[in-house]
């Protein structure tokens, strides 16, 4: 089937035009005519041609000029030049400008139709080539778009992975087959106290040689943690810091062929859980001891009273001692109750306006009998101009009475307790502080650091010199904390202690 081709015949000789027109129409082509180059260019703006038949010598714009303008190199059409005189220079130039061929006038039908067919064959080849190019270009474009988006995705994924790994609460370290560190996240850096940049590529035991657990960790990577055994928890202690406990999970990494390429080690911080557990055990043990003693005393007397009820002297003495023991039980139970309520994170404050001076006076009054027993003097100095503040009185009393009771309990016989109530040096309405200084044995640095954290009295519970649950400062600290304040301590072993309760004024 013949395609519908359009041919532009450009010739200033009208009879030539007509002859060609008729000849080509008979061949089934659409034919348009122009009498010179300029007219032809005008037609090119409106119509699309597949082939130009161009006379070389024409007025206004000649054939060579037209050939330059239509630029057959960059287009799918072709041009056949027609010449009357065999000017070889013109023909040569026309061929250089991309003409398909040239015919000498007069033009024979056979020659014309054959050349037109060949030229159109070339047009067809050019068109197909162009289509293929366009197709190829499209394919390349879409492939490169794909690649670009893939790269972007990978970059994003890489960044996302980095972000995920670094925001993890768990420490993460990946090692290769030689146990050299290849990945380490921020948490792991903090944990180990070493930066990834410093230890990348280093063997893990040498990178972590400052940690006592390095060898154990290396063994875990070799053998993997043993499920159900307690030895999956590593204790990591850095310099002077308290030990931290991490649950360690080791996962081997395998490649597609099933070969091991390294391991991923994940560290889960268990310090709080383990500390809380130790604290609870220690507290329960001390609480049991403290409760059992008064109960045994009461049981002894109850048993004796069955036999000696008639002895009025003994009866009074027994009742008196039982009252003392009972008082101690009551105190312990109250302690346990306030411990439970203050440990509750949702503790609701109930502030009211009150006179802080009165609270200090009444709380120091409560410890007076115990102080008198040890011949300890209590002095109080109020430096506040306006002692009326708004705060939760129960919490303030809790903080103060525990600090005061310790100041007496841990004081020397005949010592002194000095209380100072004062405001913020810059703005009295901002916050106030109550400082309680004693002349007791003071605290070592180690004891000072643990003071508010656990219930222990900074001594071995087995041989501690002082009774009680060891919850006093914990309670005081919690109460101050709930009030939005804090407790600080200044102390030196052998030189007494100064506890300061800081309370914001509302």
């Amino acid at each position, binding site marked *: 089937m013949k395609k519908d081709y359009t041919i532009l015949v450009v010739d200033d000789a009208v009879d030539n035009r007509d002859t060609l027109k008729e000849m080509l129409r008979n061949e089934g082509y659409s034919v348009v005519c122009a009498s010179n180059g300029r007219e032809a260019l005008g037609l090119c703006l409106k119509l699309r041609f597949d082939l130009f038949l161009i006379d070389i010598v024409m007025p206004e714009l000649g054939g060579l000029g037209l050939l330059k303008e239509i630029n057959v190199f960059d287009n799918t059409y072709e041009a056949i030049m027609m010449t009357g005189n065999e000017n070889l220079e013109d023909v040569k130039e026309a061929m250089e400008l991309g003409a398909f061929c040239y015919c000498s006038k007069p033009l024979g039908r056979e020659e014309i139709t054959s050349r037109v067919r060949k030229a159109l064959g070339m047009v067809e080849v050019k068109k197909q080539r162009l289509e293929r190019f366009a197709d190829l270009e499209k394919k390349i474009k879409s492939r490169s778009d794909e690649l670009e988006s893939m790269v972007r995705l990978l970059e994003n994924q890489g960044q996302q992975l980095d972000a995920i790994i670094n925001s993890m609460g768990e420490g993460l370290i990946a090692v290769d087959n030689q146990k050299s560190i290849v990945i380490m996240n921020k948490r792991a850096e903090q944990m180990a106290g070493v930066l990834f940049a410093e230890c990348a590529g280093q063997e893990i035991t040498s990178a972590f040689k400052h940690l006592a657990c390095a060898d154990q960790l290396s063994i875990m990577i070799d053998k993997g943690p043993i499920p159900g055994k307690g030895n999956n928890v590593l204790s990591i202690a850095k310099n002077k810091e308290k030990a931290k406990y991490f649950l360690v999970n080791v996962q081997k990494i395998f490649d597609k062929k099933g070969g091991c390429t390294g391991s991923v080690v994940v560290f889960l911080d268990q310090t709080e859980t383990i500390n809380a557990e130790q604290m609870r055990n220690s507290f329960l043990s001390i609480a049991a001891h403290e409760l059992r*003693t008064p109960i045994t005393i009461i049981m002894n007397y109850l048993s004796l009273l069955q036999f000696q009820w008639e002895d009025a002297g003994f009866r009074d003495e027994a009742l008196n001692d039982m009252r003392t*023991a009972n008082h101690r039980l009551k105190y312990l139970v109250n302690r346990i109750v306030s411990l439970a309520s203050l440990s509750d994170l949702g503790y609701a404050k109930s502030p009211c306006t009150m006179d802080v001076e009165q609270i200090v006076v009444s709380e120091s009054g409560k410890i007076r009998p115990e102080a008198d027993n040890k011949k300890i003097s209590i002095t109080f100095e109020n430096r506040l101009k306006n002692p009326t503040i708004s705060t939760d009185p129960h919490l303030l009393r809790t903080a103060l009475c525990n600090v005061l009771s310790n100041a007496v309990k841990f004081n020397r016989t005949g010592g002194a307790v000095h209380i100072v109530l004062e405001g913020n040096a810059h703005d009295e309405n901002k916050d106030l502080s109550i400082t309680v200084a004693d002349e007791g044995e003071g605290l070592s640095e180690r004891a000072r650091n643990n003071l508010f954290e656990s219930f222990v009295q900074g001594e071995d519970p*087995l041989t501690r010199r002082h009774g009680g649950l060891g919850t006093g400062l914990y309670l005081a600290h919690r109460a101050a904390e709930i009030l939005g304040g804090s407790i600080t301590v200044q102390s030196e072993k052998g030189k007494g202690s100064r506890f300061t309760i800081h309370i914001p004024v509302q």
Partner: protein
Amino acid sequence: MAAAKVLIIDDEKLLVKSTCMALAHYGFEVKGALDGEEGLRAALDYKPDVVLLDIMMPGMDGWQVLEKLKQDPDTKNIPVVIFTAREYSNGKALAIKNGAADYAAKPFEPQELAAILEKQLKPRDKD
């Protein structure tokens, strides 16, 4: 025959006092010591037939007192009953291993305590 002599070593004043009275009621002659040092001296001077020893004490704890009692030829044959308010998971085994004769956890009825001490007395000391 003379009453069996019991030495109580415990830092809780009222506990020592009331236990002394309760054991006296069950026919024992009782002496109290409020810390380890005093207890060790009393073990030599008072020559008790049995020692009732608390563990959690300030200064020297009960285990240290027990060790010293067992080291001294003059006191090593006195049976020691550990009585403590602190629960040890393997308390009795620990007590026996350290040379104690028995282990009792507070609180207990005076009668029970009397029975525990009674078991430790040599036949010649019994009436």
